[in-house]
């Protein structure tokens, strides 16, 4: 059922995608020239490779793996293949925080103000979901509280857009919400990476609990799993990873939903094995999408990464569902 070659193959794919990402861009310079120039300290190749493309590539890998991993953890916790990082208000909170920062002008006060605001938004949203659902309630209450908070965040974002002072502010907010990793710097990496890493560590440690949950909450309890603690761990891990990811990238849909779906057959259905595989798949998908954004660019503004993932993701997901249904029939 499980393919042992999957992790190394995925890893290889990821490395080649990352290398392509480093050597693809809007400046026509051969990889050899770029690499040699950067290593020997030439200012232009160094600036292109180290200051522009390296942060973008690292963020692609980090944000993609955060989304894929969180999606897999959420699906395992809620035992629902339709769960994704946005379900519990994680991305909604981040988007609202960032939009408020753009609206109030806080985003321009210092360099990392925007991602920080996004991150604060996530923390508040998760706090509210917790307060609503309580520590000892079941999964359904958690989902309902998450849906309520997500909807509220959506409504508040619309309100901010509604009150937007001028078209420039409006377009700035809308463009941020579309999701992109263009023009990010090493500062964004420094801000997001520690939180994504911490969140990923928390989530990767949930494998045993999620595996026990395969047989339902009562059986998981009887197998010695502390369900309240598992829930808190997944929620905090997701908030850290996705909060940090959305703060630097804006809203990027479908990766968190599609990556676990693609990997589930390779994981043999095991929610524990699915966690690292989905992280790798999420990273590969987002890096490939970002590469496509750059390759498709001709003239005018670059296609936003979030737009591409949704455009490709939605039909792809539909095809996946249809195929699964055919197999089940």
């Amino acid at each position, binding site marked *: 059922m499980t393919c042992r070659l999957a992790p190394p193959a995925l890893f290889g794919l990821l490395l080649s995608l990352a290398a392509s990402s480093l050597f693809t861009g809007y400046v026509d310079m051969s990889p050899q020239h770029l690499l040699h120039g950067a290593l020997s300290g030439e200012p232009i190749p160094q600036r292109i490779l180290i200051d522009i493309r390296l942060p973008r590539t690292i963020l692609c890998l980090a944000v993609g793996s955060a989304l894929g991993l969180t999606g897999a953890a959420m699906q395992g916790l809620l*035992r629902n293949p339709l769960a994704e990082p946005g379900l519990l208000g994680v991305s909604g909170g981040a988007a609202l925080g960032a939009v408020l920062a753009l609206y109030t002008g806080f985003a321009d006060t210092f360099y990392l103000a925007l991602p920080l605001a996004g991150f604060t938004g996530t923390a508040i949203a998760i706090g509210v979901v917790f307060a609503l659902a309580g520590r000892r309630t079941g999964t359904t209450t958690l989902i309902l509280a998450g849906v309520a908070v997500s909807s509220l965040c959506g409504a508040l974002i619309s309100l901010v857009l509604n009150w937007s002072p001028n078209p420039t502010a409006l377009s700035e907010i809308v463009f941020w919400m579309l999701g992109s990793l263009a023009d990010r710097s090493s500062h964004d990496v420094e801000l997001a990476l520690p939180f994504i890493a911490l969140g990923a560590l928390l989530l990767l440690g949930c494998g045993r609990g999620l595996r026990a949950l*395969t*047989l*339902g909450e*009562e*059986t998981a309890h009887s197998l010695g*799993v502390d369900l309240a603690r598992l829930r808190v761990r997944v929620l905090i891990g997701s908030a850290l990873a996705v909060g940090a990811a959305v703060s630097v990238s804006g809203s990027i849909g479908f990766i968190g939903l599609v990556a676990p779906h693609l990997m589930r057959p390779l994981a043999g259905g*095991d929610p524990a094995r699915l966690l690292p595989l989905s992280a790798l798949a999420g990273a590969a998908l987002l890096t490939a999408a970002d590469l496509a954004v750059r390759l498709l660019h001709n003239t005018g503004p670059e296609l936003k990464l979030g737009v591409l993932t949704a455009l490709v993701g939605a039909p792809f997901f539909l095809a996946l569902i249809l195929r699964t249904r055919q197999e089940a029939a």
Partner: protein
Amino acid sequence: MTAIACSGLRIELRDRVLLDNIDFAVRRGELIGIVGANGAGKSTLFKALIGLLAPTAGQITLAGQALRTFAPERRARLLAYLAQGHVAHWPLSVRETVALGRLPHGPGDRNTAAIDDALEAADLSHLAGRNVLSLSGGERARTMLARALAVGPAVLLADEPLAALDPAHQLRIMALLRAQAGAGMAVGVVLHDLPLAARFCTRLVLLHEGRMLATGTPAEVLSDTMLTQAFGICAARFQLEGSELPLPWQLTPQAPQRRSTM
């Protein structure tokens, strides 16, 4: 030796008393059947015994020690629970599902013999590679029982393991539980099939509206008086291999009418 016991057990949920004044013990080598009408508190009793519901009053002891003092994993190694409904959410293989029983033994557990034995006992070795979601109801019930056996517990509590199973599977599961008890395990099982309960269980506990109506040998517990009081039924009785088996036959004429919710 008493493996699991409760005394003066009372469970309340939102001011409703679900169980009151329950005293009973399961000793090693015993197969105890818990019988009673729907809503009598059978599943609630098991949920309390595995620590999922906290008692409002009374004591639960596992291997002579208060249940609440156990670390979750240590409790899980001693006490296995087979939940109702045989839920499986993801397409694991039968072997991987059974291997979940080894989870309480920690990540370093290498006891594949326990998994093999459980598969063998439940006659699943030939299905080990199958996707658990593709199994028939009976095969899935056996897989879940094997999962509980793979824990290697001192106590096994099985909540309606026979629900929705064909007669052959019912007999298989009861024989398997009886064999486990014979090998020294303390086994408690919630049952609705009174003839099977009378035939296989060493003792029965009869619950009625959250209280213990009777406990003792199947013949003592399944008397006409008790059946009328607990279920509002009369049983036809027949003798087989020295034991008297009650077959639910008709509603007691003078019993208060149970209002149907349909």
